[in-house]
């Protein structure tokens, strides 16, 4: 690029929200690292897990509870077995479990379930929270999920590019 014009970035866009949150959590993760064993594979693996969780959590938080998949993802993340803050999760779990139960009331209806049987199930497995949705809502959630995933990938790619030598 010859000419440098700073693009106007919408401060409340999904991308910026995700980027700020993710960077914050990344810096927290990096702050915790012990310098001695920083390059051991186990340590890298652990950090990989943590970063992945941080990325998913940042994305879900950026979407808040507006989407079923974000709610399901947040619920999943909070009730992970290795989650240390068990006290906080208990109250949150109750709330989100209630939401999950509300979701479970909707079921797949006949005709389109016949047409899209196998693929719809696969899609349900992929999209968090998709198990209890009818096809129309599932497609809706998938569209939003794809949009958020692409944002996530782009931001993470930029960060990785920035920090790779």
């Amino acid at each position: 690029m010859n000419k440098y014009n700073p693009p106007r970035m919408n401060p409340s866009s999904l991308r910026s929200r995700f980027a700020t949150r993710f960077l914050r959590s990344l810096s927290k993760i990096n702050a915790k690292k012990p310098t001695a064993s920083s390059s051991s594979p186990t340590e890298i693996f652990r950090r990989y897990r943590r970063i992945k969780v941080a990325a998913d959590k940042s994305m879900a938080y950026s979407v808040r509870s507006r989407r079923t998949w974000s709610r399901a993802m947040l619920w999943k993340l909070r009730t992970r077995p290795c989650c240390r803050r068990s006290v906080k999760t208990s109250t949150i779990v109750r709330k989100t479990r209630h939401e999950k139960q509300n979701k479970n009331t909707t079921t797949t209806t006949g005709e389109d379930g016949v047409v899209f049987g196998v693929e719809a199930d696969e899609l349900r497995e992929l999209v968090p929270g998709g198990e209890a949705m009818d096809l129309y809502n599932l497609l809706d959630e998938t569209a939003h999920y794809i949009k958020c995933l692409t944002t996530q990938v782009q931001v993470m790619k930029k960060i990785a590019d920035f920090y790779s030598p």
Partner: protein
Amino acid sequence: MENQFFLDAGIPPQAPPLHFGSSLSDWQSLPSAMEMEIQSQDCFPTGYGLRYESAMVSSPPASNCNMSSESLMMRKLGSIGNSGEIPHHSQPMLAASSCYSTPMNSPPQLNLPLPRPMALDSSVADFSADPGFAERAAKFSCFGSRSFNGRTTQFGPKDSVEIAAYRSNPLAPNAKLPRVSSSPAIKQRVAQVGGTNNRSELAISQEESTVSEQNPEPGFKGSNSRKRKARTMETSPSPSPNASKVTETNGASNEKRCKLSESNANENGSGKSEEDAKGSNTRAPEPSQDYVHVRARRGQATDSHSLAERVRREKISERMKLLQNLVPGCNKVTGKALMLDEIINYVQSLQRQVEFLSMKLASVNTRLDFNVESLMSKDTFQSNTQQQQQIFPINSSAASAFLGHQSQQNPPLHSNIANGTMTQCSVDPSDTVICPKLNQFLETVSQYPTFCEGDLETLVQMGFGQNQSQEMALHSQNFQGLNQVSGMKVEL
């Protein structure tokens, strides 16, 4: 102007006095109605005030009255816009209000001496009798003056339509609309005074409330349409046709379907759709937020079940089209099953990319400190040239970057990748071992000719579990490979 609000409240200025008197007695029995009267009083304009003044003059002289409330009332009237005239009017108004200090007795006398029937007289009586009127007047003066500007026609059926239109004026906040429409005082007054306008007013107020509900939610998805449809099968048609029509209009516009026929106001679409099916070739569904009114196409089944199914199918195909735009490379694919397969593959690849990138970040960040502000600035200043179409080739190139720590792979990598991700290749081999989902990467990567068979085997042997001893051994191998690769950064 604010005339109209007063008219709206059911008191036509030209109405006969007796009519007004009867309504007055009703009002007096309703304190909240009194409020509305009082507030409407605040809003009447200059010309009206003049008439009021003349009426006041003609009224019989006063007994004692509550001077403070009257002065307050003067001030309120003045604030609306008659500031220049209020001091002039003060005397006659005092005289007038004084005669109304006993409001219960005076109503029939009120109207008779008046040359022009003044609805204001009785409300003036209410004013003086009401100790707290000043507060309510203050509360409602803004309401009246804001909402009712520029209406000059007399209250009638036409006005009710105007009122409805005015109430749904976006200037008036939606929070106010339900208050107006649901106020029992107004409804009651309308019921007593409005006569024929009663039902239309109520219907319109219902419409308004639905309109005000619909207006803030333009983007509402039709997820409730199924529930609402079941419910509407049972509801009575009388108040709902207006409401349904309104909601349907909004919903139809939201859903980008423009046809709204007058004839399909029924929840039970089958009866209507029969006659429609015979005569019309118009589009079938008109989905809205509350009701799904479907018109059957010519020669098609008019069963309610099939109509509902058709609506569902069309909604789903609409969603599939949206997804087609999101997923790259789906334009050639026809058929829902294939589309869904493509979507599934795309979502899987995106998820894998996220994992890959997090792995990369985990390894990269061992060396560098993190500066959030600089990174954010970098993010903002980098224009995003990466298109979605690149993601698929990036996936393949990323996977091959994983395994491509052989020198012969670099040229294909160079050609595949359109952005500057190739600098990652130095750290990739260390990551690949740990990634539990690498087998899926391999599945996609195996399609690509750049993939090296030897690499596949080594990775398969590595096992993709989390066996630490294996990881250690493999890492020792990979770090040797890493040293080879580090000198081979490909940059674009």
